[in-house]
């Protein structure tokens, strides 16, 4: 964990990149956090606005218990500490899409404290990432500047919608890890049903914090907890896709290294990402940073609930991706990577379990992640649209296992079923098409004898170059239409050709 991973080469030396994410996830709730107005996406401008959302004089917030429950669920899903006492604060600043002149958020006492989740990277490594906190807050409205040349418009539909802000520790060390973390958070909230994870509709977005430091400094930070070892960070706001997150981190790391290597310094600024150019640009500098004048919101009582309620919620949680992953590893003997790929999506995991149930888990995993996902990917289909059911795939694996067909034939049968040329039980397809494997050694010997007799030169050669036996295997398979049991063919050939 602490060795310098993913070093970035610069002209003056090696650099490390350090990444932290603040993920804003909209709570899947029909109503807003404090006003009772609808939080439904897609309404006409200012249709979902209550008197509270519009900050009319004398209006007061009342907490939505359902949203609190979703925050607790999410906190439990992040293996985090649930704070039975928390408090809402006001974050004060002026902006037309913030009608109250302050956002109700949680500053010093969030509802969820520290936690930890795992991410998996392509190398197959599993990396723990610390969660700093999760807090509940209101979203702001939307300012629209392009409808008229000299006027701006405000849509308050989002004003007051409940958000969970999930803050990571600065534990990510590359663009890949940042992207994997964002993706994992999305997977977790989707499993829990606490956020729909829909980034196009703005249900999820991330503020991406990036800094770079000379190789070795991160280790010093880990040992001392002293942030001085890390470089000055920039915060890129409202990144609304996992791909963009990766781009932001890559771009920022490179940009910062170039500045530092040419003798410059990094400004602690807030940036915006432009997907069109793949670059970041300044939104506001540190000098323009707001003093938010946080203080406890006197309109709301502290948020208090019992451990019993938390326990009740905990008991109702579905199996979470990481738990599932570990179970797949233990129960089916899968690698961490395969287990993770399968566990991260509820439908895929369910499909896999239906295939693996009572069978060789590894073989099932290979077929699901290899053949099936490959074919689905190519056809641009989701697991739910798979032309091959879990039952069919299971039967196909059974046919391999009991030697009825070879793996190669199984792939052909798979392709027939996937393309819709065959439907129904794979056993019937094999029967009907006469694809059953020939295990009758007499029949195979007969074919082998014929081939050796017809190719005496090659038969001589094999004794010197045993590798050329493969040519004979091919001949036999061709003659038997691929149905000969490959193991039996090899054995007989070796015997007859005198290959050790």
């Amino acid at each position, binding site marked *: 964990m602490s060795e310098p991973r993913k070093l970035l080469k610069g002209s003056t030396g090696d650099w490390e990149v350090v990444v932290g994410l603040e993920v804003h996830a909209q709570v899947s709730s029909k109503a807003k956090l404090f006003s009772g107005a609808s939080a439904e996406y897609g309404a006409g401008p200012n249709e979902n606005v209550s008197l509270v959302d519009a900050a*009319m004089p004398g*209006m007061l917030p009342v907490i939505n218990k359902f949203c609190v429950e979703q925050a607790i669920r999410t906190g439990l899903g992040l293996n985090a500490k649930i704070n039975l006492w928390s408090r809402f604060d006001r974050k004060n600043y002026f902006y*037309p899409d913030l009608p*109250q002149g302050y956002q109700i958020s949680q500053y010093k006492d969030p509802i969820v404290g520290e936690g930890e989740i795992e991410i998996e990277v392509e190398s197959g490594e599993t990396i723990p990432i610390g969660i700093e906190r999760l807090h509940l807050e209101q979203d702001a409205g939307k300012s629209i500047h392009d409808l008229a040349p000299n006027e701006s418009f405000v849509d308050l539909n989002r004003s007051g919608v409940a958000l969970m802000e999930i803050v990571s520790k600065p534990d990510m060390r590359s663009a890949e890890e940042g992207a994997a973390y964002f993706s994992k958070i999305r997977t977790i909230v989707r499993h829990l049903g606490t956020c729909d994870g829909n980034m196009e509709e703005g249900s999820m977005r991330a503020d991406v914090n990036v800094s770079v430091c000379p190789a070795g400094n991160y280790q010093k930070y880990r040992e001392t907890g002293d942030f001085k070892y890390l470089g000055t960070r920039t915060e890129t706001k409202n990144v609304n896709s996992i791909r963009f997150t990766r781009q932001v981190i890559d771009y920022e790391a490179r940009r910062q290294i170039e500045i530092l290597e040419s003798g410059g310094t990094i400004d602690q600024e807030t940036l915006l990402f432009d997907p069109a150019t793949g670059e970041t640009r300044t939104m506001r500098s540190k000098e323009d940073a707001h003093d938010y004048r946080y203080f406890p919101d006197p*309109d709301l009582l502290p948020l208090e609930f019992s451990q019993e309620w938390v326990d009740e919620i905990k008991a109702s949680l579905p199996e979470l991706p990481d738990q599932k992953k570990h179970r797949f590893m233990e129960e089916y003997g899968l690698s961490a990577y395969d287990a993770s790929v399968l566990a991260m999506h509820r439908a895929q995991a369910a499909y896999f379990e239906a295939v693996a149930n009572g069978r060789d888990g590894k073989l099932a995993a290979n077929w699901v992640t290899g053949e099936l996902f490959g074919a689905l990917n190519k056809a641009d289909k989701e697991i739910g649209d798979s032309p091959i059911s879990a039952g069919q795939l299971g039967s196909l694996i059974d046919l391999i296992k009991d030697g009825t067909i070879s793996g190669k034939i199984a792939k052909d049968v798979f392709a027939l079923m996937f393309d819709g040329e065959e439907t129904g039980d794979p056993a019937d397809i094999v029967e009907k098409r006469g694809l059953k494997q020939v295990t009758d050694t007499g029949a195979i010997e007969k074919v082998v004898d014929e081939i050796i007799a017809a190719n005496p030169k090659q038969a001589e050669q094999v004794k010197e170059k045993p590798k050329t036996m493969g040519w004979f295997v091919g001949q036999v398979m061709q003659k038997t239409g691929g149905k000969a049991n490959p193991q039996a063919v090899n054995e007989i050939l070796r015997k007859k050709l005198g290959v050790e």
Partner: protein
Amino acid sequence: MASITDLTLAELRDALREKKISAAETTDAYLGAIEKAGELNAFVTVTADNAREMAKASDDKLAKGDGGDLEGVPLGIKDLFCTEGVLTTAGSHILDGFKPVYESTVTANLWRDGAVCLGKLNMDEFAMGSSNETSFYGNVINPWRRKGDDTALTPGGSSGGSAASVAAHLCAAATGTDTGGSIRQPASLTATVGVKPTYGRCSRWGIVAFASSLDQAGPIARDVRDAAIMLKSMAGHDPKDSTSIDRPVPDYEAVLGASLKGLKIGIPKEYRLDGMPEEIEALWSQGADWLKDAGCEMVDVSLPMTKYALPVYYIVAPAEASSNLARYDGVKYGHRTKDFDDILSMYENTRAEGFGDEVKRRILIGTYVLSAGYYDAYYLRAQKVRKKIFDEFTDAFEKCDLLLTPSAPSAAFGLGEKTDDPVQMYLNDVFTVTGNLAGLPGASVPAGLDAQGLPLGLQLLARPFDEETLFKGMYALEQAAGFEARPENWWVG
């Protein structure tokens, strides 16, 4: 029979029920009185047509014998309460033209019980002031004058319009709000009864917010019984206000006249201020004697944190106000400047034009005490002292059932006398802010006149949610004081 407007609320209620008079003629009598009292400047808006309609509806109900507790009783409403379809100004230019599409919970409760709305009462801008001189709509004039002197005096504030209109019999009773003394101090200066109930007793929903953790609505009335009737109607749990408390509302009128035998009255020595007029000190002793005669036992208590109450108040209240008033930005409602080129200058000029000096002063103080680097030294420290003040009261109420203090450090003063020195003005609330900081119920009852013939009040404070004991004590004081003086009707034009 006396003129209709001279009846107390209780007398009027009974006369209406007995159909001795009609709601319509009652309302007309009050509208007439208001019309003649323009010089007092107590009303910002008179809703005459609306009042007559409500009165007519009340008469229909009274005819059928199913009138509510306040059926046909005409009231004045402090202009801090949002009233549906009726201009609501909070005494500020920045709310120009603001007509809410909703009704505050407290006023809705009053209309539910049959009361008639005469109009909206003048007040200090956003309830920030102790003399009603910060109102955009001009100062209110106290119906009371010094003997042989026609200098215009302040009715106190911020509920100055409420106190003046009740004292001048321009309404049967009025609503007020009290953040640091804004009901009790004007009540003291106008010989009316003002009650600030326990924080959470009345809903704050629909009341323009000044300092959310301190604001509380309450009645200003002619006597203790009227105040009891008013509070019963105004109070009650409201799910729309998270700080409103779900407790049954007792019948406060029913406790009036109950024996005070064995009740312990605390006299906090820290409320004896240097330079306080002797008359006030004498009245305070007199009040203690009255309660002793009524069967109470006097107990000396000490509240050493009292001296920090005003400084704490002038950190906490402006801090909350600076945030509460951020919504008045010219974007959604109220005044918007015509002089701007971008969003920032629109905000700046709107707020510069829309807010008066006192409001600006408090927004500045509040912004300052919440700023990075000052928060711990001011706001956080003030909250800690506030907790100590609360704890001190809790301890004191182990030893006694009520606390007796003066209501205000002086009688009514002349307009303009204290406007140049905000700190002098702030000192008006020295006896009352503690009750707000601790969330306690408190009330001012008229107790006597000073040498110049101006009224003085005494304050009682009670345990949280023990308004019943508070009313018992108030009634005993009222009975003993036998206060009957009335201002001359000099304003009747």
